[in-house]
């Protein structure tokens, strides 16, 4: 379905993005799910909850309704520190250090698979 609600003639298409709230919103949590044994937890989304316990309960209901996970982590979103893509690019320019790549080295064919 198109979830873009059409802009009726005479409407600007702008929608309000903020408003006054009565109470305070619950904090946000980032959710990480381990799909099965042997692989890492992977970030899957976020949610709001009053505390870690209810965050875990909500994460189970929201993100693992069909056996998508054997283990779930929740982490307060405000506790996450991150590299942004631009900064990360400065640190990891693989092209400058090609000698770090296995494909940089020529091994004669007769040596076989290495």
């Amino acid at each position, binding site marked *: *379905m*198109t*979830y*873009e*609600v*059409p*802009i*009726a*003639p005479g409407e600007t*298409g*702008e*929608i*309000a*993005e*903020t*408003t*006054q*709230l009565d*109470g305070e*919103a*619950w904090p*946000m949590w980032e959710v990480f799910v381990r799909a099965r044994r042997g692989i890492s937890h992977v970030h899957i*989304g*976020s*949610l*709001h*909850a*009053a*505390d870690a*316990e*209810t965050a875990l309960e909500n994460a189970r*209901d*929201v*993100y693992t*309704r*069909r056996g998508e996970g054997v283990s779930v982590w929740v982490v307060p979103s405000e506790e996450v520190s*991150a590299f*942004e*893509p631009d900064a990360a690019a400065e640190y990891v320019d693989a092209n400058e250090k090609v000698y770090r790549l296995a494909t940089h080295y020529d091994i004669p064919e007769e040596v076989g698979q290495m």
Partner: protein
Amino acid sequence: MAPPEDKFQAIVDAEDKIEPSDWMPEGYRKTLIRQIAQHAHSEVIGMQPEGNWITRAPSLHRKAILMAKVQDEAGHGLYLYSAAETLGVNRDEMQELLHQGKHKYSSIFNYPTLNWADMGTIGWLVDGAAITNQVMLTRCSYGPYSRAMVRICKEESFHQRQGYELLIRLCQGSPEQKAMAQDSINRWWWPALMMFGPHDSDSPHTEQSMAWKIKRVTNDDLRQQFVDMTVPQANYLGLEIPDPEIQWNEERGHYDFGEIDWDEFWRVVKGNGPMNRERVAHKVKAWEDGAWVREAATVYAEKKRARTAA
């Protein structure tokens, strides 16, 4: 250094994804907020037409299916609010704006569910139309939206298949059951086609959305795709599509179909469909009735924190 607009467009053109911390044009951000918020609201309001039948499902099996489906819709709403929040808006505020009538949701949910067959037709046609659109949106340029769509599409497949199977059962049943299914498709066919939005010629924002790769296929193309897919499915059920102009066009390689009643379309978009007021009123009531649960959870969390600190 290249201007940020160029870098942004280069990422989009390369079929790479834009992530929340990337620079993006203000119009891109606003378009996404509008669309993702409306999409989230649609999932949440979309629980009502089906919730209406949970207590009247004809068997425990069908009741369990319907509850699972309604729970999925709540989950879809949450994935989407979560995607919208990466753009710097707040979920509770979006919801408050919906309550105030300042945000809209898909018009399809402003139609009533009058018989049990509607539970099948909604899965088949409404979720079918949703899948057509959402499969396209998995390729949307905004990472968090695209990822939410991948999860949602997996679950929508259950929604559509259970709906179609429900209709197969009704159509193989008594004449009354089949008549119920026919009555249902008669009411839902046109609103389902309306879900794809105005004609391309009346969608001034399509071009920009396509350039930003928020939208990948136009309204009319998606609608045609949906009709082509659905007509044979209706034939299998032995149900008649309420459009005398439906006909295979050999030359085009598509089904021709009649014109949508655009007056009705705009009437419902503008808030005057059969259920607009009731849907929002019910949503506000559910939120207010749940206030004590939210307060209790907050107080309990504070109490626990205080105990741990002590």
